[in-house]
């Protein structure tokens, strides 16, 4: 319908581009430059990493929940990390915690989430043939793959993988004599992260360029679907903050291997006074958190964007406050850069800085609150269809609220004195960033599965998966706040050394059981996911009756996504249940001139510029001379 004015010129061009020769297997499935294939590659790697990362957490939850349990049965898997008495090695415990954090934050929720959906949705939703640079996009994935290989291999080192916490604070991470994890494991961690950052930058530049340059006719920024806004801002965040992590990592590599003293000063360890003076461990913390805090939003914003789309579609209602949603995302993205030191209130940093950062941190609650209220109002007087994706989106909003609220306590430097590095922090960020973003990923997979594979996932299994996971996550992390309020420090192998932390043994056991239960529930998803790829019900073209452009492509979009002309865009993406319209949705590519019955007064005026939009055509990559 949108291509009413499809002119002959485009048909000629179409013919020109039909003679693409079949590409080799390697080029189609391995070193593919097609954004859809790359997205799938990211998705599968993300899922695999999630299984690894979650399994690690189950092992240390066993230690925490059942401190006297004999773990000999894990010896075939963990070998000498299980001592002769059947106990988990304390250094390996730290390595598990470290790798769980690293894998989940970077490999699952950054690469897995952003990599999958930015790659997949940006071209499809803005109406582009592919990413701005398919080659860079391919490089991005393969750098990530290389990084994954190095990180995964480090799990099998005799001295174990990195073990100083995912934040790898020096001097612990800089001195091999301080902990086994700072030997080869840490070297590999740093190499893997350097590769990872390269991958992120290649990807990020591509996402930004694509969104700015390759939007289809009429797709102004004020008509962009919210996921694209989210991916765009996420890429900007990554582009600015990841290089800082790279520099932090490089200086750490120098300190470790070339005798510099960026982070080291006045250290006496293992019977020896080191010559390094003048460095500052706090410098690393500043550099690390300058990435580390935006990273939280790099992980969360795509999930929020995905949720906005899904909640609106399945409430059959426009997202409430579209502009406010964008403004709050921009606000969050901006503030993300100036709050990093709230991770460092008691690091020895000047307390005056603490005051400043407390103030800036608590401001971030305002745009976050606006987002939460807007989601809730979108549900109000909707006509809600509970697809599994919708369930996960609502779950996400609940986690976002519950976990975000405790941030108001932790962002308050006076209260952070007691709660810093306790389980309260662990509970807080697992809800607001971990679980919320994981739900964003799952919601996205359920929602766009038909576009990915042309088949539907089984909704019933999806419901069961959702309810078990939703309940399970609350059972894990809600009681964890209690443990934190009681003062239990995080990264403790066991709590038996202290009188103050001897309480709550049974609660720790409960949390561990709930964690195992939640972990188990994910196998329902895996079963559903892999089964549906091959045997799922065949998907219709627009299964959720959604407005965005990706549903105007064929069920199995080929190279270039649209077989003919790329549709033009005339309206915003959230015209659901518009009064007067026949259907309860009007796709973005339907011109106002075809919906006279439902147009609002100012929209009738827009009919005049339709011709103009129709005539623009500079962004179709297939129409560029090459």
């Amino acid at each position, binding site marked *: 319908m949108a291509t009413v004015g499809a002119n002959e010129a485009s048909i000629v061009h179409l013919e020109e581009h039909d003679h693409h020769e079949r590409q080799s297997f390697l080029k189609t499935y391995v070193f593919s430059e097609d954004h859809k294939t790359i997205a799938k590659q990211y998705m599968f790697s993300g899922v695999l990493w999630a299984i690894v990362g979650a399994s690690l957490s189950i092992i240390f939850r066993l230690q925490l929940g059942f401190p006297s349990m004999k773990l000999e049965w894990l010896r075939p898997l963990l070998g000498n990390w299980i001592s002769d008495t059947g106990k988990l090695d304390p250094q390996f415990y*730290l390595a598990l915690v470290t790798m769980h954090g690293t894998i989940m934050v970077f490999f699952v929720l950054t690469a897995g989430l952003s990599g999958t959906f930015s790659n997949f949705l940006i071209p499809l939703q803005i109406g582009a043939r592919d990413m701005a640079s398919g080659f860079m996009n391919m490089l991005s994935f393969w750098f990530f793959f290389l990084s994954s290989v190095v990180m995964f291999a480090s799990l099998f080192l005799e001295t174990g993988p990195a073990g100083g916490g995912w934040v790898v*604070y020096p001097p612990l991470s800089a*001195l091999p004599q*301080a902990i086994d994890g700072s030997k080869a494991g840490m070297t590999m961690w740093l190499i893997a992260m350097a590769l990872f950052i390269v991958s992120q930058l290649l990807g990020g530049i591509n996402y930004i360029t694509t969104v700015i340059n390759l939007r289809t006719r009429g797709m102004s920024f004020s008509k962009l679907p919210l996921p694209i806004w989210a991916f765009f801002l996420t890429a900007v965040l990554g582009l600015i903050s990841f290089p800082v992590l790279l520099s932090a990592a490089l200086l750490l590599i120098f300190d470790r291997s070339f005798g510099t003293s960026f982070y080291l*000063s*006045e250290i*006496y360890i293992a019977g020896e006074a080191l010559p390094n*003076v003048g460095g*500052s461990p706090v410098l690393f913390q500043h550099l690390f958190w300058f990435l580390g805090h935006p990273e939280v939003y790099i992980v969360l914003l795509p999930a929020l964007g995905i949720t906005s789309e899904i909640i609106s579609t399945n409430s059959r*209602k426009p997202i409430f*406050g*579209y502009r*406010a949603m964008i403004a709050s995302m921009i606000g969050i993205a901006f503030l993300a850069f100036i709050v990093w030191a709230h991770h460092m209130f008691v*690091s020895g940093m000047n307390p005056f800085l603490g*005051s400043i950062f*407390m*103030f800036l941190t608590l401001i971030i*609650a*305002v745009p976050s*609150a606006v987002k*939460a*209220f807007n989601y*809730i*109002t979108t*549900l*109000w007087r*909707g*006509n*809600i*269809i509970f697809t599994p994706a919708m369930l996960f989106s609502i779950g996400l*909003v*609940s986690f976002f*609220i519950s976990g975000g609220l405790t941030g108001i*306590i932790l962002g*308050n*430097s*006076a*209260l952070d*004195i*007691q709660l810093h*590095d306790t389980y309260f922090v662990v509970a807080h960020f697992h809800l607001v960033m971990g679980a919320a973003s994981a739900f964003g990923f799952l919601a996205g997979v359920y929602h766009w599965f038909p576009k990915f594979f042309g088949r539907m996932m089984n909704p019933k299994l999806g419901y*069961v998966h959702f309810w*078990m996971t939703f*309940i399970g996550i609350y*059972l894990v992390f*809600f009681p964890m706040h209690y443990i934190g*309020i*009681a003062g239990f*420090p995080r*990264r403790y192998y066991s709590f038996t050394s202290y*009188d*103050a932390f001897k309480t*709550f043994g*049974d*609660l720790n056991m409960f949390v561990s*059981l709930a964690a195992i*239960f939640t972990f188990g529930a994910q196998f329902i998803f895996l079963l559903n996911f892999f089964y549906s790829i091959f045997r799922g019900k065949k998907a219709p073209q627009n299964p959720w009756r959604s407005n965005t452009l990706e549903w105007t492509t064929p069920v199995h979009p080929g190279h270039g996504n649209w077989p003919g002309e790329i549709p033009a865009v005339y309206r915003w993406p*959230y015209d659901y*249940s518009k*009064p007067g319209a026949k259907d309860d949705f009007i796709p973005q590519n339907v011109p106002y001139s075809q919906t006279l019955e439902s147009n609002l007064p100012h929209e009738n005026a827009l009919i005049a510029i339709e011709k103009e939009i129709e005539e623009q055509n500079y962004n179709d990559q297939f129409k560029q001379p090459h």
Partner: protein
Amino acid sequence: MIYVVGLLALVFLVLTVLVLTRLTSVLKGINGDSTDENEGIGLSNRINGALFLVFFVVGVIAAAWSFNEASHYFLPEASSPHGRRTDSLFWLVMAVITIAFLVTNALLFYFAFRYSYRKDHRATYYPENHKLELIWTVIPAVVMALLVFTGWRAWRDIMSEAPSDAVVIEIVGKQFNWITRYPGVDNNKLGNYNYKLTDANNEVGLDLSDEASFDDFTATEMHIPVGKPILLKIRARDVLHSVFIPHMRVKMDAVPGMPTRFWFVPDKTTEQMRNETGNQKFNYEIACTEVCGRGHFSMRMPLVVEDEESFKKWTSEQKPWLTTHTDYLVQVPEKLKAKAAKYVPADASAAPSDSTATEQGGGAGTSASLR
């Protein structure tokens, strides 16, 4: 045990979901009409909507009950005035966020239930309302401003300079224990230290070229007098550590190369706490909260809070470090030897000069010694 019951309840809930979903498909099989467009928007949609409401009600009950059960472990009895201040602030903020938590989650789950799909019904086209948006931007902003202000005032007071009459104690973190150093009874001044002088005996790197260090003594247990401001001078010897005294609401990182500090007033003695908590074995403890390696979880140091008299008595019983390590006398410069002799038992004052000790001390200047 109670948690096992909770878990069983959970399993039961899940089974219910399973049965219900199975039921839906059975019912569907009976009815046999699967309208193409609205498939899946039948019974299971209503069940999912209802489950949100059930989840909210059961969840709030479970949260309230478990909170009540667990609350006697929360924020263990504060023993410092600033601790009680932050505790009340904590509960104030907690009250505010609990209200927000209940209201927003209630609306979220209620709307999910109330507005679940109905055939022949249409959602309201309601894209924006600037007034409403303005209201819910301003309200959180105002609440945040109030919280920031109260929090900032508490933070400013806690982090202010310690009073000049504060009892100064040094606490040094190392893998994997804490060492305290007291300024001694004679000059009440901590002597210089230099990390290069550290060795197996001189664990804190005491610099004997500074006469203030002669009467310093170290201990593996911290004693502090009740009711007086205590200034902890915190440093680390190898990697990051963090001093955490849960009952005092004290936490501050120990950073190699960058001394940090924290001052507080303990106002309950160990004895008083034993009586108050009814636990005769009660002891204050100092823990480490910055991951520091294999033994991170066991860096416990006992803390004794006692009245001034017992504290004086305890400090006077402690022997200056130099007294117990007379072979380090060679590190004392010639012109201070006479002053140092006071701290050395008569029979040991003529100790032979230990060559290794000399060499170790010789190369190190005092440039890096910071107090």
